[in-house]
């Protein structure tokens, strides 16, 4: 007796199915083989001959095994109980089942997918390029968004660090990072929800390297800063609390970069003394920070320019009696950060600081905090640093995503058009028994191969785009150092590509699902995407594309208009032929305010005598510096009542010649003169805005105003309004009051020198430098820029946003045009027969033209309406981003809609004309 079961078992590899199922299959196959064997014997073969013949006829068992597995429900294949198989572990069974599912012809499908892509070169190239450009743009923007906004700051527990800041809604509504020393000391006691707090300020100093005075950027910080950040020096140690006490010996910690520059990375630098030019003191080096330590990068948008090189040194911040005095309660200029105690929430910190403020308002009514609506903002540190660029970046990201969406829609449409051409092929294969799963898999594979190729290209395009962005002012963003391509960015791009690949593949695959064999085959000859749903879907794609393009283009045009408005704004100065630079007279050599004034006078005299200099002056604040120095002023003839909000103009201290150098127009009265000295009557010049604010409808010349104290300043002139914060300015600004330096030495030491020249302002720089050197060789001149450069730099983020959104808008429009053309051309090709019949029945070519164009017009109009609605809906988010133009400006909306409409309709013309030229005889004869 032959063992047919053993025969089956010998050939058929284990199926890894539930045991009872596998036994049944083997039994059945064995019975059938036995029947076959019997039949051979019945034909006269001997038992042995029949056995041998049976062996000879053996089929492809491997194929049969695959087919048997295919025939089993997927769930049974995966979810069999563990004891049913030969001790194989469950995961390995899943793996083997998955492998069985994947391995059957996967390689072949992949090959045929590739072959098809190569064969359909036009389609593949279009799809891959479209996708690569869209993905690349997204990758570049995402790497910026991720680096600046999303990637946690490189500090341990960065998400628990908060920044505090007093906000004066009517004065500095944007400033959420300003603090005073006394409030810090109060908060140390009151804010128990913070387990560590630190106060710091930027500190600029100078050091002579190779005989040339160079500016250094430093930070004065309470020793708690390093504990709070959880970062220790790589070499040496952090400051002790005692080192911040007044009278303790000066100590300094260097950045890795400065240590390399000064000491070539010699560890023996520890313990050495370093003399800083500004304070004139010798500091003992106690530590060197790690190479990659970066903290508090505000970008160029912030007030203090931390610079691309970051902070170069740290010195301890201690508090003198003056720091602690109540008079210092309005002396801002410090940054305050805290670390939230484990278990506490940021709301708790906010509640505690609110309670503390309420007590302070009562204790110090003289500062009129309550009237001014002052409050303290508690913000997560990363958010505080990136707040200004956040909306712009998200907006750009949205635009890039929109372009990607349009691109993906295009490709879906293309692949749909292609799959309708393949519909018969697929339907036939389906009818002939190819499994739906296999065909679906092949369609998906094709799409994934396509999007994978695009993703690889996109990495190259994205890298190039990021490089362009970097040269276009990316570095002015806060955290810009964190912007790079890393695993996260690449992974995100690949994931996005895979997702899009699946989506693109799903479209024809979903169609396949509804593709009944007979429905395609039974139609005799006309097949393809005849389905109503498919047609609707393709039309929907066109509408969506047009709508998205309209939204993007409107955004781009709004930003362009806003940019043009900014450029043409009267900022209150004439930027041509003006060069500016800063100097910090060190207190070690210019101890008294009078010394600073004397220095200014000498420097100005020296510069004024240079050839080509038309005017020169200094100021305590330069236009577009991004910051203001508000102080309370009062009209002498009108005492403010209790409850009146105080008037807080920006207070600027200047020298005679400054207005001439800057080109600020004099409206009435006079400018400051050399005769306005400490011995003459105190005078002031105000700008138009402050004039209207203090004396509406009255000539302010001759009026008096008080600046905190009891000195009465007489208004001698009115000048045009100057934009200090940005070209866009602030509508609620109180204006500016100018005081002559000789009468009101500035509170700070920072001086900007502005020189107006007859020729190229950059040419004068060497002689300015040498003039300065003869006066004080240790005094560095820094931040040297022409006013034009300052204007240009103040617009960097606007320019970037405008350029990118314009690019996205144009790409979107192009993609839409391609999409519309493609769909209509396909439509015409598919309806050739119908069109032929219409012509044969007497339709004129003109009528056909109208028929096809009409189809296009309906789709384009629907898209335009939807797009306009979207643009209006999104308008609110753009409101803060644009200047001098309403996001719902009807002219812009109309123009963009008209342009998009015309361009889109042009894309319809060629297919429509082709339709009109259809020759009925040829078409019908073909049919």
């Amino acid at each position, binding site marked *: 007796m032959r063992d047919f079961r053993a025969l*089956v078992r010998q050939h058929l590899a284990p199926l890894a199915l539930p045991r009872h199922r596998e036994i049944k*299959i083997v*039994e*059945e*196959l064995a*019975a*059938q*083989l*036995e*029947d*076959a064997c019997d*039949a051979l014997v019945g034909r006269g073969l001997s038992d042995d001959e029949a056995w041998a013949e049976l062996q000879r*006829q*053996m*089929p*492809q*068992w491997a*194929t*049969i095994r695959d*087919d*048997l597995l*295919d*025939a*089993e*429900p997927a769930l049974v294949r995966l979810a069999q109980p563990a004891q049913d198989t030969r001790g194989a572990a469950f995961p390995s069974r899943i793996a083997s089942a998955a492998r069985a599912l994947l391995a059957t012809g996967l390689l072949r499908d992949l090959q*045929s997918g590739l072959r098809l892509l190569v064969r359909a070169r036009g389609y593949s190239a279009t799809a891959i390029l479209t996708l690569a450009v869209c993905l690349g743009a997204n990758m570049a923007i995402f790497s910026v968004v991720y680096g600046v906004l999303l990637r946690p700051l490189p500090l341990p527990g960065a998400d628990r660090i908060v920044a505090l800041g007093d906000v004066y809604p009517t004065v500095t509504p944007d400033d959420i990072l300003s603090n005073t020393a006394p409030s810090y000391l109060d908060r140390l006691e009151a804010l128990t929800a913070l387990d560590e707090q630190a106060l710091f300020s930027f500190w600029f100093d100078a050091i002579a390297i190779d005989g040339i005075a160079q500016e250094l950027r430093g930070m004065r910080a309470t020793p708690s800063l390093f504990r709070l950040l959880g970062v220790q020096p790589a070499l040496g140690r952090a400051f002790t609390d005692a080192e911040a006490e007044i009278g303790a010996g000066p100590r300094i910690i260097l950045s890795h970069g400065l240590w390399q520059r000064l000491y070539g990375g010699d560890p023996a630098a520890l313990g050495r003394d370093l003399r800083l030019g500004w304070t004139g003191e010798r500091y003992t080096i106690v530590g060197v920070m790690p190479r990659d330590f970066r903290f508090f990068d505000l970008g160029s948008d912030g007030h203090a320019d931390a610079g691309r090189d970051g902070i170069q040194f740290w010195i301890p911040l201690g508090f003198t009696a003056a720091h602690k005095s109540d008079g210092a309660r309005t002396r801002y200029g410090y940054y305050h950060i805290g670390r939230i105690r484990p278990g506490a929430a940021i709301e708790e910190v906010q509640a505690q600081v609110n309670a503390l403020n309420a007590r302070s308002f009562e204790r110090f009514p003289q500062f009129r905090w309550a009237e001014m609506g002052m409050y303290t903002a508690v913000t997560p540190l990363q958010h505080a640093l990136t707040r200004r660029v956040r909306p712009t970046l998200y907006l750009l990201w949205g635009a890039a995503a929109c372009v990607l969406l349009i691109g993906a829609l295009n490709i879906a449409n293309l692949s749909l058009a292609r799959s309708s051409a393949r519909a018969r*092929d697929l339907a*036939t*294969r389906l*009818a*002939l*028994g*190819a499994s739906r799963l296999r065909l679906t898999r092949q369609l998906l594979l094709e799409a994934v191969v396509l999007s994978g190729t695009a993703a690889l290209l996109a990495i190259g395009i994205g890298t190039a785009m990021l490089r362009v962005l970097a040269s276009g002012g990316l570095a002015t963003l806060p955290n810009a150092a964190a912007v790079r391509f890393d695993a996260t960015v690449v992974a995100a791009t690949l994931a996005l590509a895979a997702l899009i690949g699946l989506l693109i593949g799903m479209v024809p695959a979903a169609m396949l699902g509804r593709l009944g*064999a*007979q429905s395609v*085959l*039974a139609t*005799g*000859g006309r097949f393809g995407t005849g389905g109503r749903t498919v047609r609707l879907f393709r039309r929907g794609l066109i509408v969506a594309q047009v709508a998205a393009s309209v939204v993007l283009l409107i955004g781009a045009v709004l930003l362009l208009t806003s940019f043009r408005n900014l450029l043409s704004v009267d900022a209150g100065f004439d930027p041509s032929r003006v060069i500016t630079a800063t100097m910090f007279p060190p207190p070690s050599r210019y101890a008294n305010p009078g010394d600073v004034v004397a220095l200014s006078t000498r420097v100005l005299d020296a510069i004024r005598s240079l050839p080509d200099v038309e005017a020169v002056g200094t100021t305590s604040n330069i236009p577009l510096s991004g910051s203001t120095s508000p102080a309370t002023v009062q009209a002498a003839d009108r005492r403010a009542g209790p409850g009146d909000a105080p008037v807080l103009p920006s207070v600027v201290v200047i020298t005679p010649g400054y207005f001439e150098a800057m080109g600020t127009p004099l409206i009435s009265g006079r400018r400051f003169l050399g005769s306005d000295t400490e011995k003459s009557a105190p005078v002031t010049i105000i700008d138009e805005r402050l004039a209207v604010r203090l004396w509406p409808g009255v000539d302010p010349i001759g009026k008096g105003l008080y600046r905190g104290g009891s000195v009465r300043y007489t208004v001698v002139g009115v000048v045009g309004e100057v934009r200090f914060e940005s070209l866009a300015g602030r509508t609620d600004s109180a204006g500016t009051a100018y005081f002559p330096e000789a009468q009101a030495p500035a509170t700070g030491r920072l001086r900007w020198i502005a020189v107006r020249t007859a020729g190229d302002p950059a040419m004068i720089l060497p002689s300015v430098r040498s003039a300065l050197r003869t006066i004080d060789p240790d005094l560095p001149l820094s931040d040297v820029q022409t006013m034009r450069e300052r204007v240009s730099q103040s617009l960097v983020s606007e320019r970037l946003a405008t350029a990118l959104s314009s690019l996205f808008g144009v790409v979107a429009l192009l993609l839409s045009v391609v999409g519309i053309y493609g769909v209509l051309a396909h439509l015409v090709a598919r309806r050739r027969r119908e069109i032929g019949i219409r012509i044969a029945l007497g339709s004129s070519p003109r009528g056909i033209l109208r028929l096809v164009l009409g189809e296009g017009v309906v789709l384009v109009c629907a898209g335009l309406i939807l797009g306009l609605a979207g643009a209006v809906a999104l308008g609110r988010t753009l409101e803060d981003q644009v200047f001098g133009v309403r996001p719902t400006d009807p002219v812009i909306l109309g123009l963009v809609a008209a342009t998009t409409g015309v361009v889109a309709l042009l894309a319809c013309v060629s297919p429509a004309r082709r339709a009109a030229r259809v020759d009925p005889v040829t078409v019908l004869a073909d049919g």
Partner: protein
Amino acid sequence: MADIQRDETALKKGTAELLILAQLEARPSHGYEIAQQIEARSGGAVSFHVASLYPILYRLERRGLIAGRWVEKAGQRRRRYYTLTTNGRRVLADQRRSWRAFMEAIQAAAGVTHA
């Protein structure tokens, strides 16, 4: 139809479904009978190894087009007999129709005329 040429097994499998359903139209049969009937009725032009029919039988059974049950007759081996279900009958009719349409299309396209 390049894909079809590359996919001969699919062709055979697809035809096989129709062929199996057709064999079961008259009476329930077991696998070996089905294979023999196909070979006999096609004049030997189409033949299947009985083992390769089984994946298709199982699949048809899972789709509810045929139903199998074990039958033990006196003096015979235990065999599994397959019956055409109502659903299977309907699908068979459908498939016959579309095959006819397909064949006519092929004939027209290939210039093959009816004898």
